């Protein structure tokens, strides 16, 4: 059996090169891969292209990587009022930013994961989100063309994993994590606990192991 278990978060992100695109799970403080983010901070990879719902809260979450100036481009739906380093770097032009409606952000990931290249959606029609996008009327409704969003890596957080990579989540910490797992070439998951193969009820598995490449056990990790 292929070993997907890595001994540490640092080992799991050791090959993150400069210029890599990375999806980061999490929403509202729940389900963030804090240990993987910190490990990328320690590794110091630069010019990262980050895809995330928001852009950190002060020195926590993605704030770690913005503070280190490791991110040069970001796609997000809600950067957030506490994303201070992001805000500063957007203003100075150091960071390039694309705003995407939240539901479209995850739907573009879902398309990537499902092998769909693009889709038409009514969200953003007539707004600045539609700039530069093909528009057409589908079944009588104005729609714009949205493309699939694929990344080199997804860094996600789950509750439990077995060594195959089957994942369960805890409550509302699920959020973006399952869809990101499907939309990256390499999915790295930090979990509270790794349990033996066969101990997760197959009925409760949310992310099947095929979507998971690397697993790190980090315990009950929280933000700063």
């Amino acid at each position: 059996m292929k070993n997907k278990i890595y001994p540490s978060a640092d080992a799991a992100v050791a090959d993150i090169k400069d210029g890599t695109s990375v999806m980061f799970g999490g929403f509202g403080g729940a389900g963030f891969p804090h240990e993987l983010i910190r490990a990328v901070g320690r590794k110091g990879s630069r010019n990262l292209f980050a895809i995330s719902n928001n852009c950190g809260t002060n020195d926590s979450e993605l704030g770690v990587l913005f503070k280190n100036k490791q991110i040069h481009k970001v796609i997000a739906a809600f950067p957030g009022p506490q994303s201070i380093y992001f805000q500063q770097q957007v203003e100075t032009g150091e960071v390039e930013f694309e705003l995407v409606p939240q539901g479209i952000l995850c739907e573009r990931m879902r398309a990537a994961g499902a092998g769909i290249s693009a889709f038409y959606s009514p969200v953003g029609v007539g707004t600045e989100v539609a700039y530069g996008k093909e528009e057409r009327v589908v079944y009588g409704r104005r729609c714009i063309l949205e493309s699939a969003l694929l990344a080199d890596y997804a860094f996600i957080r789950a509750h439990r994993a077995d060594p195959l990579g089957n994942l369960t989540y805890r409550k509302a910490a699920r959020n973006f994590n399952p869809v990101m797992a499907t939309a990256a070439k390499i999915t790295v998951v930090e979990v509270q606990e790794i349990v033996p193969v066969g101990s997760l009820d197959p009925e409760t598995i949310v992310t099947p192991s095929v979507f998971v490449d690397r697993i790190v056990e980090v315990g009950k990790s929280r933000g700063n």
Partner: protein
Amino acid sequence: MAIKNRLTREQIAERAALELPDGAYVNLGWGIPNLIAGYVPKGVDIIFHSENGILGMGPRAKEGEEDFDIVDAMKAPVTVLPGAAFFSQVDAHMMTRGGHLDVSVLGGLQVSERGDLANWKVPGANSSGGIGGAMDIAVGSRHLIVTMEHVNKFGETKIVKICTYPLTALQCVKTIVTDLAVIDVLPEGLCLREVAPGVTPEEVQSMTEPKLILPRRIPDMPISSRRLAQNS
């Protein structure tokens, strides 16, 4: 011109809560909408949706009893009620965009006469904030209510002929509940349904750019919570 007898944010929420039918699946946005859950009348059961992946969301968690894996869209630790479900962001927005929710309530910066909504960015503001789920919610809502103050802090009406702020979605708003009035967006224009107690239809019109349709009878907004706004 300042109008006395404006409602408070809590009173706007109280009035908006009366728009929610028993058994409805409802999403509440940031700001005044978020206050509505506290004013749902007894006997009315609402199933609240949170766009990060909860149906059956309950009140805020008590201090010391928070589970930080259960938060609402504003990051606040909340509780869940019996019958709640957790799901992914994809499923959460299938519910909003796919038209599966009965009512959504969002805050507003501007609403136009044909129901266009601008609610995520003030022109010239820095990059803080963002769209979040508002565009998906506005586009997919079967019944979208906007709650907001009628006039912004610069004294400008927020109910306009054409939105000048960055848009959230076109022709999506069905009802506007403000500190002065309840207004329905009809194909023929904006119709004044109710006024705040002590406010006249003429005063509402003076604070509204498009011409309002005035039905013969325009009752007072039924408000039971006491404190009226203290304003000049």
